[in-house]
């Protein structure tokens, strides 16, 4: 699997296959974000389309030093969603819809939260297999360390270190790439 750096380089060189790789890797996440924010599949597909076209025409603007390819794509998608909601509001036919869409009733469903979730999920998918399995048992199945040890047959100490390292990786990625950090000032002095 080629790294974001490699992909970025190929993108900048105008290699269309690199965009295809980015699409295969992150198209589903972009579509998910758009659908969550717009609440409608057809519009979400449109946004996904314009997002990848914009990524192609604006490929010189991607800097791997400043974030992963996924967070860059999700950032473009968010702007495209906002554009779409604004133009819908201008059309005036959907003002009411826009208002309800911009104020989601479930406050966990802010755009930031969705982006954070996609970023953490992406990082989880990049962890070494055993680390990832261990964390999934803790997150999804709510198993304790001893239970995970029993299920997997891994020594308790190994489970502990998998979870500690895995959590540290997820946290690092979230700090670098998460919307919550991206939209505020990045760094350790996060407002509590």
């Amino acid at each position, binding site marked *: 699997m080629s790294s974001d750096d490699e992909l970025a380089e190929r993108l900048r060189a105008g290699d*269309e296959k690199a*965009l*295809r790789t980015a*699409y*295969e890797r992150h*198209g*589903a*996440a*972009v*579509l*998910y974000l758009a659908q969550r924010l717009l609440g409608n599949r057809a519009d979400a*597909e449109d946004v*996904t*389309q314009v997002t*990848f*076209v914009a990524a*192609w*025409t604006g490929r010189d603007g991607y800097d791997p030093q400043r974030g992963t390819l996924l967070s860059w794509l999700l950032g473009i998608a968010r702007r495209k969603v906002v554009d779409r909601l604004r133009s819908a509001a201008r059309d005036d036919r959907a003002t009411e819809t826009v208002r309800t869409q911009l104020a989601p009733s479930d406050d*966990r469903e802010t755009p930031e939260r969705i982006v*954070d*979730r*996609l970023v*953490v*999920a992406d990082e*989880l*998918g990049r962890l070494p297999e055993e680390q990832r399995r261990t*964390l*999934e048992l*803790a*997150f*999804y199945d709510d198993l*304790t*360390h001893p239970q995970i040890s029993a299920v997997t047959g891994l020594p308790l100490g190994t489970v*502990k270190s998998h*979870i*500690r390292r895995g*959590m*540290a990786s*997820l*946290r690092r990625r*979230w*700090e670098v790439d998460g919307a919550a950090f991206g939209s505020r000032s990045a760094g*350790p002095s*996060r407002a*509590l």
Partner: protein
Amino acid sequence: MQHLDPDRLVLLALSEEQEELTESDHLAQCAGCRRDLDEFREVAGLGAECQDVHDLPPPPERLWRAIESDIGRTRVREAPVTDLAERRIHRKPSRRWAPLIAAAAAAVLAIAGTVTIDRVLDGRRTETVTARATLSPLPTVSADARGSVRVLADGEMEIDVSNLPLTTGFHEVWLLDPDDPTKMVALGNLSDRPRVVLPVPPGTDLNRFRLVDVSDEPHDGNATHSGNSLLRGTLTS
């Protein structure tokens, strides 16, 4: 000051164990450990939500095709149309293609199932020419690549090319609207021949679609312009 052990912070964040009193005291005083715990809690919460997104279905393939076709269009738009027009002014008029030595036999080849007719021109054709163009190489193509085009009164277009770069795909001929190069008409391919005759679809407005474009197309099953133009020239009557 004794900070909380990272293993311990993770256990607390996962709500697997409860804070001891001494730990609560420390957390109340130590902003660093408090932030660590808060962030691990946040990550644990996000981690639990990952179940919803960890195996998202891939978007439909038609979405990719739409992206690909939009990109093909932007690349054609990026190709320097005006630049070519300037280059043509400084270029000496290209030598009219010399009359061919009468071919021993004019092979007429109609390929079943396609509208393309390849024909070896034998010099005896005397059709009226309604428009012509001199094709010049784009900046990325070697300077000796060239071509000439004649549109005949019967609606066919003769194209004569030389020194085109080799391709692993094929060379395709297009008519573009220079005012909006995303609009174009595909005429057919050169089939590795230096000279072909292609029918112009009836009704094509050659005042609008006056920019002749020869492109390098990969065998990717994508019918849109690859964006890789080799030669261009404007039809004049």
